[in-house]
């Protein structure tokens, strides 16, 4: 029998959700300042509205509190995390929709969801004339989403719900016993990378690209946020092809890899611990190498590029972009659509695999792939060894860990759910008349929060497909558990007694 949640349950969820929306109000200050400095007064007025609305909702939610002494349970945190990713994009649309660069409101919601989930698929039109402040806002959404907007709120939040909120965002590994300390560390890592990344990209912009200092800083800030948070939005319509620079591509590639690394790994590196045996590091390196070879071979076979250096450069950049779930590109979507055969396979598989757990990347994740491979290998070894022989079932991740049947069940369940999600979007696109290749490519790109496109995602795409991609981005980012908790909570509210 389903138990209907009490009024207190709803109050505690509304209270926490309100606090997170308060973060949106604070984040809106940055593009507001940018708009004022650039004299983009219309955009500035929409940022004032965004800040006002978000602050008002946060203040109202602040007054809704559960009875004192009532503990916030695990499911509340999950429900709040799931709702956050649905509600925050709606607030974020205020300046996007206000810019007038979207045909319909849902397109601006699509972009906000894409930004917050660090996907990078975009429906904005005439991007190259978009106000800088709105462009900045798109990238800030990626930064917030990548770092975890919930994580941002955790800096100000206390209570037992904090852990479930943290896990609800698709993060598993805590570096410190305290979630708030973990949140602080994640933001410290990000801030350090931001200072270095933006600094280096700004210097490159001025000294190599020949941009003015102000524009170099704008490009550097936006590209940093999109690269480190594996988002993939870019301030110009031609993505990284705009910069025509191998140095720029190399810097961006390093940032993408740093973004796809789990924060646990960042922590281990900061503590100068050895990470070479870490299962995620090994799996990620292995799958990048395999998909790189496949992609390069594919590009060579279709005759897309003849010479070795450009072949490796183009192949490596796109495999890193796909595998880290970033979605930057140096070729047009029309050109990428021509990458058939092995090249298509290499990029698509790289997208589906994704980055490391507890990182800003999406996809199945290296940890699950590594554990699945290890489990299969152990099963084969068990079958081959004499009866009674003991097979050690351990793996290295911040120390030796045991591979339990529960862990393996969870690995295969989530991995299968991802495959199902990939196939679902592809099936809908197929039903709407798209070819299998583009349908699968775009579906994986949306579900694994990548953002590469072969042209299916466009402002004139069917409404149904747009809604499906929005849902895929949402579900893929939160890795199913929080969504299941929200569905369970909704069912209990409606049908419970």
């Amino acid at each position, binding site marked *: 029998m389903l138990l209907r949640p009490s009024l207190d349950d709803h109050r505690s969820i509304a209270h926490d959700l309100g606090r997170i929306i308060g973060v949106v*109000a604070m984040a809106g200050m940055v593009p507001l300042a940018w708009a004022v400095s650039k*004299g*983009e*007064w*219309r955009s500035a*007025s*929409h940022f*004032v*509205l*965004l*800040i*006002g*609305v978000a*602050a*008002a909702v*946060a*203040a109202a939610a*602040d*007054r809704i509190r559960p009875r004192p002494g009532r503990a916030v349970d695990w499911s509340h945190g999950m429900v709040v995390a799931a709702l956050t990713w649905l509600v925050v994009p709606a607030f974020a649309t205020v300046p996007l929709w*206000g810019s*007038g*660069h*979207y*045909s319909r409101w849902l397109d601006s919601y699509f972009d906000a969801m894409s930004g917050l989930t660090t996907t990078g698929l975009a429906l904005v*039109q*005439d*991007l*190259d*004339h*978009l*106000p*800088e402040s709105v462009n900045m806002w798109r990238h800030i959404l990626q930064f917030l989403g990548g770092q975890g907007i919930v994580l941002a709120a955790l800096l100000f939040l206390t209570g037992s719900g904090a852990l479930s909120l943290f896990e609800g965002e698709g993060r598993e590994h805590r570096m410190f016993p305290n979630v708030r300390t973990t949140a602080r560390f994640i933001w410290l890592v990000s801030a350090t990378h931001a200072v270095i990344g933006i600094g280096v990209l700004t210097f490159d912009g001025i000294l*190599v*690209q*020949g*941009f003015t200092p102000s*524009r170099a800083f704008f*490009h550097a800030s936006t590209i940093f946020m999109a690269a480190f948070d594996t988002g993939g939005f870019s301030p*110009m*319509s031609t993505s990284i*092809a*705009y*910069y*025509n620079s*191998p140095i720029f591509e190399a810097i961006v590639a390093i940032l993408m890899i740093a973004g796809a690394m789990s924060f646990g790994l960042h922590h281990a590196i900061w503590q100068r611990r050895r990470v070479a045996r870490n299962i995620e590091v090994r799996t990620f390196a292995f799958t990048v190498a395999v998909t790189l070879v496949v992609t390069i071979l594919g590009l060579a076979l279709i005759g*897309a*590029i*003849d010479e070795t*250096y*450009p*072949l490796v*450069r*183009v192949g490596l950049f796109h495999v890193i972009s796909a595998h880290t779930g970033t979605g930057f590109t*140096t*070729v047009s979507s*029309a*050109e990428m659509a021509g990458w058939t055969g092995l090249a298509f396979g290499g990029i698509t598989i790289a997208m589906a695999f994704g980055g490391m757990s507890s990182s800003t990347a999406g996809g199945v994740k290296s940890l699950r792939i590594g554990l699945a491979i290890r489990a299969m290998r152990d099963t084969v070894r068990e079958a081959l060894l004499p009866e009674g022989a003991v097979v050690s079932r351990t793996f290295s991740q911040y120390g030796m860990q045991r591979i339990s049947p529960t862990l393996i069940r969870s690995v295969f369940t989530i991995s299968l759910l991802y495959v199902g999600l990939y196939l679902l979007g592809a099936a809908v696109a197929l039903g709407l008349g798209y070819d299998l290749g583009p349908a699968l490519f775009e579906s994986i790109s949306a579900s694994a929060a990548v953002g590469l496109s072969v042209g299916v995602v*466009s*402002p*004139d795409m069917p409404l149904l497909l747009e809604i499906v991609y929005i849902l895929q981005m949402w579900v893929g980012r939160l890795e199913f558990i929080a969504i299941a908790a929200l569905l369970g909570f909704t069912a209990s509210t409606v049908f419970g007694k």
Partner: protein
Amino acid sequence: MKRLVVLASVLVTGATPAVAQETVPVSTLLALPDEYDQQVVTIRGEIVGDYGDRGDVVWVQVNDDPYVDEPFATSDRLAGTNTGLSVRLTGGIPEDFGDAGGHGVRGPIVEVTGVFRDLDPALGGLTFLEAAEVVLIESSERLPAPEPDSGAIILGAILLAGALLAMAQRRDLLPKRSLS
């Protein structure tokens, strides 16, 4: 008035001197790169973004989408996403081109003739147009800035003030009023 700006890239690249021909849409070049690779083509469009002045060469992006003739800022009509191609110029950008296009600016409208290079091995796999000739058709133009949305400002300010007041009251930050 049309002005012809002949750039030194003809000498530098050894490209075939430009011959007057019909313009090719950038979308066609990108859709059929093999067909146009190493061919002399002409594109017409707006320079957007930045002038990437690297001393010996200048990199620009030339868009040839519908916004070239009908800027969104003046027409308020959306016509899809942008279509652009990188163009490599030798010889610098004359001052009368004006600012590159962006928010509130329609960039210079140019006609560029040169060799289309798809995933060029010499430059590590870049796709671009090696310009031989650039004809300035129209200089850059400032577009009318959109008016601030006063309704949004007033509503936003009222909501923000209310929120700050409510939060201050909640946290007992406001001075207590005496009953006497």
